[in-house]
């Protein structure tokens, strides 16, 4: 395996570069996946049937908490990659850990929020609106959950093997995934919550 030392570790082999490009192609597909969910949401949002409308079930406080948690975690994973490029394994793992803890907190708030929805009579089967709302939020939440497990295993690998072209590549790809989830959340925050509460 040819290692190019002029490049950051995560780009240092041909295979690593291909993996990063490949992951961007996957993210392109993810953009389209979420676009279909948003398209369905915009069509179905007014179809509340006998269930509640968005404006009566959305609460600003938990939504704002989720937004700040996810924005901050996106910042800390960026700092982790920066520390990785400086070759500082320990601070990198600290930032990585903070990112996952913030992600876990986000998930906690989201679970509280879902519980609240079900409590006020907005379950998955209540109306077309609640179905697409919970499906869209749930798809994002499932991505975050998957990211938490994935990130944890990468941390264990770095702990065991240190920073190698492989572990650096995995970490960088994980950071792309995590930033992407933040981008999706920004659109959920703007066009589902804020639009609904406007």
């Amino acid at each position, binding site marked *: 395996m040819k290692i190019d030392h002029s490049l950051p570790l995560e*780009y240092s082999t041909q295979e690593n*570069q291909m993996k*990063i*490009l490949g992951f*961007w*192609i996957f*993210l*392109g*597909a*993810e*953009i*389209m996946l*979420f*676009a*279909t969910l*948003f*398209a*369905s949401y*915009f*069509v179905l949002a007014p179809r509340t049937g006998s269930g509640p409308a968005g404006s009566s079930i959305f609460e*600003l406080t938990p939504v*704002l908490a989720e*937004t*700040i948690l996810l*924005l*901050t975690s*996106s*910042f800390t*994973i*960026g*700092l982790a990659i*920066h*520390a990785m490029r*400086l070759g*500082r394994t320990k*601070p990198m793992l600290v*930032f990585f850990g903070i990112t996952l803890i913030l992600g876990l907190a986000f998930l906690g708030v989201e679970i509280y929020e879902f519980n609240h929805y079900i409590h006020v009579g907005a379950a998955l089967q209540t109306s077309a609106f609640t179905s697409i709302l919970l499906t869209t939020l749930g798809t994002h939440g499932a991505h975050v959950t998957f990211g938490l497990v994935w990130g944890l295993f990468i941390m264990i690998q770095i702990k065991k093997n240190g920073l190698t072209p492989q572990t650096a590549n995995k970490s960088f790809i994980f*950071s*792309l995934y995590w*930033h*992407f989830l*933040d*981008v999706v959340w*920004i*659109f959920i*925050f*703007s*066009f589902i919550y*804020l*639009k609904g*509460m*406007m």
Partner: protein
Amino acid sequence: MKELFPIKQVMGFIFSLVLTAVALAVYFFDMSFTAGMTILLVTAFIQAGLQLVMFMHAGESEDKAHIYTNVYYGIFIAIVTILGTLLTMVWGYV
């Protein structure tokens, strides 16, 4: 310690919080649907661009052209899907 917090990323983070605060205006102030949606569209897309370029380093490798082409393609299909759906199902030919 200081080298672990690059000024560019710190500024990016602060800017993203500011954008969130600006978006919140649609909740706290009474405004028309058009004005509100304009604010949300502007803040959301700047926010997304910020993440893409600053945090995801989209333009730093030699695959830059491929990455951007692929992202633009994804966004194009996303916009066509959403606007097309709105056109046929919501705005409609009524």
